[in-house]
């Protein structure tokens, strides 16, 4: 698993990357009340705002970690956004992206580096 400085976790399986947010991010956000997901089939570029998460405090964005196409979204989050707090590293993944450039995954931190990053 890889991690971004925006506190996303990325799990790659071949050229498909599953994207969620870390436990640390979910704690910082507070209770999540709304998740806006992209449409399946959307082409995204690394760094694009792809998901909006609204917590009791504020709205924040999840960025596309790599270039590619959104091939699946976690529709259960629409009815149960609280999953982002209860199971951020598991059930509460946001989307799967089929990347056109797997080498972009090399830009990201491994678990030890991420732990150092959040202190």
């Amino acid at each position: 698993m890889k991690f971004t400085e925006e506190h996303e976790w990325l799990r790659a399986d071949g050229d498909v990357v599953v994207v969620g947010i870390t436990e640390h991010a979910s704690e910082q956000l507070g209770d999540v009340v709304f998740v806006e997901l992209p449409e399946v089939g959307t082409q995204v570029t690394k760094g694009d705002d792809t998901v909006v998460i609204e917590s009791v405090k504020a709205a924040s964005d999840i960025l596309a970690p790599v270039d590619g196409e959104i091939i699946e979204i976690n529709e259960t989050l629409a009815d149960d956004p609280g999953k982002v707090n209860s199971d951020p590293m598991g059930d509460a993944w946001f989307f799967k992206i089929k990347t056109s450039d797997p080498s972009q995954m090399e830009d990201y931190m491994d678990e030890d580096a991420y732990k150092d990053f959040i202190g």
Partner: protein
Amino acid sequence: MSDTLRRTPLHALHLELGAKMVPFAGYDMPVQYPLGVMKEHLHTRADAGLFDVSHMGQVIVRAHDGYDAAARALEALVPVDLLGLGAGRQRYGIFTNEAGGILDDLMIAHRDDHLFVVVNAACKEADIAHMRAGLTGCEVEEIADRALLALQGPRAEAVLIGLLPDVAGMRFMDVAVLDSDHGELWVSRSGYTGEDGFEISVANDNAEAFARALLAHDEVEPIGLGARDSLRLEAGLCLYGHDIDSTTTPVEAALSWAIQKVRRNGGARSGGFPGAEVVLEQLENGASRRRVGLRPEARAPMREGTELYDQAEGGVSVGRVTSGAFGPTIGAPMSMGYVPSEMAETGTMLYGEVRGKRMPVKVAKMPFTPANFKR
């Protein structure tokens, strides 16, 4: 930065309870505890929540000739009937400016031979200066040696009765000075959540022990500013500096109910407060805009600053959201904001622009959750 922030007498207790602290109105205040905003909110509606509101200003207004003289003096600053306020009763009030705008909102209690006033933290210096300048013949005393706690929720009465049996006889908006193991307590049956509950002023030196005695009950959880905000918004209550300010009049703000008949046109003490011509004229003929409740149709909250439109595309903004959040009890987003009076009817469909998209939102009745007061 943090060393310039003021601390309430409960500051050490907040840290011990694991609160996340934030700067608010010049104070270092708990925004949430480990329970989190959502559960703190729901707990308050189901059981009881304890809030530290010691940052708010507590002021005693006294005149040599007793209550009526002090009440008459303060009526020159607020459009409220204070001469008609019974002893042991409290009433909501508004300081107006010469344009009829709102300088602050406040609670005013008739206590024996004087008035006890509670004002917003961010406005308290200005309010005290305003009263000292405007209340001739009155002594305006800021009470700096007392903390203020709020115990709110359906279980608040049962909890407080254990410490203060006399509160059982109080009803909504009653005030009383009661002796206790924690010294003299100044109690009002009121709050800022839409629930039954109490606000209790306690000497600084006794505040922590009193708070611990309340928190010792399983029904009581400490509640931070985050849940305080979502609770008051569900209850349809204004937050000064957001939903009301010096540019909004009481009529525009849908606070006309706070202006009793005796202060309106034709009343025995009509007018006589700053901006009375503007406010009384609007009471007769209406204002061009009005604060309303708003319920977004989708799940995305429409937060403060969201522009409102009367059509799904094009056109110009007709109003703006002044407070918006997710309501944990209603399980849906909620907002309040100002719209043209002709669009203020309940059920009117408007559109709020969220992240560049127009999203449908309906004008809705407030409070969003039914009030649960002990009348």
